[in-house]
């Protein structure tokens, strides 16, 4: 599986029909498209709008849909009340740690499974894949106990970056993905490299890695998205010190019973960076999300 999305030229679109019926169909299609877009976009749209309104306008009827005098102070309030600066830092650091960990371990493991021979390789591969069958929600309670009192070392990692990142530094899915990607490296390249006296490490980082860059990028995006959106684990393993953006948002919503505009501003702040990132890395996102779903 090459994990490349087909270009427009090779996509099979339904054959165009000729005739007057086409105008009707096209209009219908556009109407439906617009309607669906409105419905889907509405919650995000109203969030942005409400983040710029005073509470009285939000509660006022009929509702306001366009902020005439945007109240930008809501954003400052959100930033301060939710300590969003710190929360974003925590989330960024945690996510980067997780992404780095997953990329590194998946890269190495994927290469090993694809190119290296070692005893028990098959068994170890199964061990990797089996982790995908144990959802985190099943083991989070025990993980919490382990974090508070690491066996052998006896240290308490509650409310630390280590606790946030450690359980997710490796992923069976990532190893599987990278292995598949490495397997598509043409064997003549390997032979040429061997003839040139390339050891495995050099081959990996000089030749193989650049070739699997698309898959790696997909993994990065997918990994980052999951890490950023995490809710359950940060909830049970952090206290005041390492509140992530998602937790800060939830706490803000609980505290601000009346000032919902501030909560909405916080929501926008929490989402914007991600939205920007995803727009830029759209292709990688699609690859990452569809990896395994579609052949070819």
């Amino acid at each position, binding site marked *: 599986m090459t994990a490349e999305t087909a270009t427009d030229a090779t996509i099979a679109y339904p054959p165009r029909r000729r005739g007057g019926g086409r105008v009707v169909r096209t209009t219908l299609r556009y109407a439906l498209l617009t309607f669906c877009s409105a419905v889907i976009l509405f919650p995000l749209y109203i969030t942005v709008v409400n983040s710029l309104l005073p509470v009285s306008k939000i509660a006022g009827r009929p509702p306001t849909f366009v902020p005439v005098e945007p109240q930008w102070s809501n954003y400052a309030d959100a930033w301060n009340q939710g300590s969003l600066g710190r929360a974003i830092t925590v989330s960024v650091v945690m996510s980067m740690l997780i992404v780095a960990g997953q990329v590194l371990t998946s890269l190495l493991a994927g290469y090993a499974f694809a190119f290296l021979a070692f005893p028990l390789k*098959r*068994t170890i591969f*199964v*061990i990797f*894949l*089996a982790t995908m*069958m144990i959802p985190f929600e099943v083991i989070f309670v025990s993980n919490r*106990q382990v974090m*508070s*009192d690491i*066996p052998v070392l006896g240290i*308490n990692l*509650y*409310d630390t970056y280590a606790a946030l990142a450690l359980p997710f530094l490796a992923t069976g899915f990532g190893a599987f993905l990278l292995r598949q990607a490495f397997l598509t490296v043409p064997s003549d390249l390997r032979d040429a490299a061997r003839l040139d006296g390339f050891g495995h490490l050099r081959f990996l980082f000089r030749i193989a890695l650049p070739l699997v860059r698309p898959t790696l990028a997909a993994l990065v995006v997918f990994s980052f998205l999951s890490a950023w959106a995490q809710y359950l684990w940060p909830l049970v393993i952090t*206290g005041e010190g390492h509140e992530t953006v998602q937790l800060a948002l939830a706490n803000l919503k*609980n505290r601000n019973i009346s000032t919902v505009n501030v909560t909405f501003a916080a929501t926008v702040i929490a989402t914007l960076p991600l939205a920007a990132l995803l727009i830029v890395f759209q292709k990688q996102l699609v690859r990452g999300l569809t990896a395994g779903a579609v052949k070819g």
Partner: protein
Amino acid sequence: MNARLARTVALGAALALSIAACSGNSDESSGGGGRVPSELPECPLAALESATKPVALKMWHSFPEENLKALQALADSFNASQSDIVVSLEQQAKYDDTLTKLTSGLSTGDLPGLAVLEDTATQTMIDSRAVLPAQSCVDATDYPIDDVIARVREYYTVDGVLWPMPFNTSNPIMYFNKDMFTKAGLDPEKPPTTFAELKSAAEKLKAVVPTPIALKLDPWYLEQWLAVDNEPYVNNDNGRSKPATEVEFNNDSGIEIFSFLDELHDAGLLQTYPRDGFDNLLAMGQLQAAISFDTSAAIGTAVTAIEGGLFPDFQLSYLGATPLPKPDADSDGGTFIAGGALYIVSGSNSNPVPPEVQAAAWTFATYLNEPVNQAQFAGRSGYIPITEAAANEPITQQTWSTYPFYKVAYDQVTTGPESTATAGPVMGNFAEQRKVIIAQMQSMFSQGKEPATAVADAATESNQILRDYNASFGR
């Protein structure tokens, strides 16, 4: 692939299981049997003397707005008055959250020195072995604990040991709208004193307001009215001579209470409101209800709201408060106290709280209970001044004479007999058990369940909760 997968998983699981089994600590729990340490731990005042000052004391509480301000003022004045201890307050969302965090903190190390916990936490805190009983320091310093009014003392004393220092004590009372009473032809100075009188008053009030009674879906109706009937809620002397193992409300008194509420509901005299918040009192303020039951600690918020003009049609003179009506005229018990109390946290084996911090907690707790400070805190909030000295303070006396409804809760807990019933129930996982009561009440109201069945089901589920709780301590 499937076979290999399964085989590897099986092998791996067996391996890991044996590792985990070896690492698991199989202490057959012997410690869970005796509930109270045979000898009280020492009050670590000496540690405070010799510690490097200032000692930092973290206090967890869940007081909102007005009460928070009052507490903060006291903390500030304490910090200003001496340099050995510095108190910092950390606000939690509600009582439940404080206790949950405390329990977690025993493993994670995130612990305060002093925590304001709900009245129902008593058994849980005893079993946690994570608090220093106030009795230790009361004994060590000869603290005049007898100044504290009887029912408050008795509520928090289990098997002869006072566990927390009482602080913010309240009591549920009946709020009513005097103006609506007059309009309905009732005497506003003679509000109902029994269930029967309440029902007939409500029927008359129907002429003035469609659903006269705003019933918050609170769990304490069964608890308190059983106590008013002088009946215990759980066995083993209301859980005070030994840990409670069964509930005792599945009897005529309990069924009578639930039936009465159901009757009011079926007759359209009653509208339910959620447990969180004060929507029921808001409804009264907006003239959608004439009567409601709630904690006395809400008076302060209500008065502030009324005087602040939040309810243009509700004048302060309309606000009436009276003790809870009795189920029958011959009910010879009384209500037990509610609210919260101050627990000195000692931590767990893996995460102990330093002794000087515990001593600091005791010191601050006694400061909070000095008559002037008690009076100031209780003052306009609706909490009850828990010592006679505090009750006699000028602030209190003045508040009572200007706003008589503040005195209702105090009178309610200082009149009547002292018995096991009025001491109040002590049981493990009380908060969980209360959810059962609320659920059964909801079934009764919205799904037409028979009151007798609701009470019986509540008893069955409550007993299961108690069994589970006790089993987890090996008893």
